[in-house]
């Protein structure tokens, strides 16, 4: 039981990291608080659902399609709202409210388009077998999702630490003004970050039916708070810190579900609260407190 709890915590930890990393990328690059993050996850989930039920599309294929679609969507969304927002007095606070409004819009449209019913995908779509890790049996789909999540996180790291655009992205995260002084087009870099951030959320959504359970148009709200808990535990504005946050969250959640299920809903908030008060910048971060 202990081994099972730990291993499933790690598998889910990887998935949770994927779920939250896009939110952190967006916050890190443009200091925008994307309260609609969970709703983009929901859209990914419905994409997977319809692709599977209508065309029997493998979720891994759906993932690729969704990824590119949402990069474009994210870029467009960026130019539509963010430059205007950045001119305001307190962009960070206003972004919180703006994206809350956006979240309402997405949920409303989703209810109109998809209806209210809970839906789920046949769990065998990502493999029906049992995979044995260290003598413990796990659903094949969990292992597939965890592996894909790991791969996605590695790709994000390569993007950020190896590619030219990635270096520019980190420059913008570290110091907007200085990056602009070097001639980096902050808008272009931010638009990419927004696109990639939303795309990562959407692919996490594609896998959510296998990891989280049945899906519905209003599922996003909880996922947004969960994602916030994860990135704050890791460290806001540091995408790689998200992995630490995801792992801690995954392990503690699985521990509580195994031994104290009725308190398990409290986990993300409790972790979030403690970390905020003890180390507001997250476990890996620096300077974030107010004077």
């Amino acid at each position, binding site marked *: *039981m202990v081994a099972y709890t730990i291993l499933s915590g790690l598998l889910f930890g990887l998935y949770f990291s994927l779920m939250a990393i896009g939110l952190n990328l967006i916050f890190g690059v443009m200091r925008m608080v994307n309260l609609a993050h969970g709703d983009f996850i929901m859209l990914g989930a419905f994409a997977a659902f319809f692709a599977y039920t209508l065309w029997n599309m493998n979720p891994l294929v759906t993932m690729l399609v969704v990824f590119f679609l949402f990069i474009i969507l994210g870029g467009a969304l960026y130019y539509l709202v963010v430059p205007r927002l950045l001119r305001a007095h307190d962009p960070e606070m206003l972004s919180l409210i703006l994206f809350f409004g956006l979240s309402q819009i997405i949920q409303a449209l989703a*209810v109109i388009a998809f209806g209210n019913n809970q839906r789920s995908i046949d769990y065998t779509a990502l493999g029906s077998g049992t995979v044995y890790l260290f003598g413990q049996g796990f659903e094949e789909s*969990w292992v597939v999702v965890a592996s894909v999540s790991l791969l996605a996180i590695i790709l994000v790291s390569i993007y950020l630490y190896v590619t030219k655009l990635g270096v520019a992205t980190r420059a913008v995260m570290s110091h907007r003004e200085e990056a602009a002084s070097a001639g980096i087009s902050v808008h272009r870099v931010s638009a990419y970050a927004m696109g990639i951030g939303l795309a990562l959320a959407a692919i996490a959504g594609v896998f959510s039916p296998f990891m989280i359970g049945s899906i519905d148009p209003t599922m996003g709200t909880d996922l947004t708070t969960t994602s916030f808990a994860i990135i704050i535990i890791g460290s806001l504005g540091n995408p790689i810190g998200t992995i630490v946050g995801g792992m801690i969250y995954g392990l503690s959640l699985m521990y509580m*579900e*195994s031994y104290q299920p009725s308190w398990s809903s409290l986990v993300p908030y409790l972790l979030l609260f403690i970390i905020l008060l003890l180390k507001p910048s997250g476990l890996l971060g620096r300077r974030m407190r107010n004077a």
Partner: protein
Amino acid sequence: MTIRFSTRSRRIATALTLSASLSMVGMSALPAAAVKTPNQLVIGTLYASSGSFATSSISSYDGLKFWAATVDRQGGVYVKALHKKVKIVIKAYNDQSSATTAATLYNQLITMDKVNVLVSDFGSVLTSVAVPIAQEHHQLLFDVTGTGASFFTKSNPYLVLTSLPTSAIWPNSLADYLVKQKTKRVAVLYDTNDFDQSQYNTLVSRLKAAHITPVYTGGVPTSTTNYAIIDHAIAASNPQAVVEFGYPNNDIAFLQSLNANGVHFPKVFTIFPGQQLQLMQQNVGVSGLANTLTYPTPPLLQYNRVNFGMPLSAFEKQFPSVEHHPVDFLTVAGYNAGLIIQKTLETSPTLTQLGMRHAVNSFSGTLNTIDGQFKIDSTGAQIGERLPVGQLIKRGNGLAVKFLQH
């Protein structure tokens, strides 16, 4: 004393009053304050088009609408107090699964629309706020499915539960069945809400009376969607039967995870396959549901001695073509609420709310509908129905039910 306003402040004050009255007038203009002519009777109700209760709420609302459409096609309901047939008009608002919004809307139905008959939305949460409001305004509340035991008190005559017994007595048959089968190792998992917890309490105390102590008990939040870990925890206790009391979403997630992670239990009981088979089948699949134990309700359960309204076969034929919605238990419950109201109007010599309540008492126990016997106790709670235990059996491409315990 006279207060002299400056011009500007007076302007502001005027603007304020104007905007306030405008917004309030906006509200009142819309419902057009329920035109009440002797030729129609207004039934007020709420439904939820979004939020956590939407699926169930829409089903039961469609059932009620179907009833109204059916009687209206026949020229309306015979109202004894008016000595003639009167058409039924349903006035419905959307509470979006929010109890706070529902409170305002129940109030709107009573105070502004002055509906003749008040029907609650699905479930205990959305019914809870209606109970005190209805009592305060001396309006009889027809409660369709809100089975929370705390609603029903001797001091409140303004409440009638039309279908389903209060949830605390649901598991009686299940307990009998488990005892009879000499199931010694029982695991009970429940969601921490009124509805499921009261069933859990009943089941455990009945089992204990038969000297069966559950080998595993656990309460999980109603929002739980991933049961894999819990499955493993239950499996560790090595049970012969696992009982899961949840809402539809919980039952779906629970059954799905059982299929997915290869944990196998000899007997599994969940509530909702018996009430919303179609929804469950869509999400869990036929093979995932096969052999599951459940409380079968109409349409899985057919009551034969129907003496009022359509029998099941007719309902199954007509309902989908009128409401474009598959038949499930909640559509039956909604329809049944309509039938009880119909009988009330046919019986009651007056249209006063208490008069109607007395009428309900007078036919309690004599009415057999598609949903079984209608019988209430002195608090207005349903006691006529008793939920049997059945097992879903794979038959061809679909599922059939085998009754195990009545």
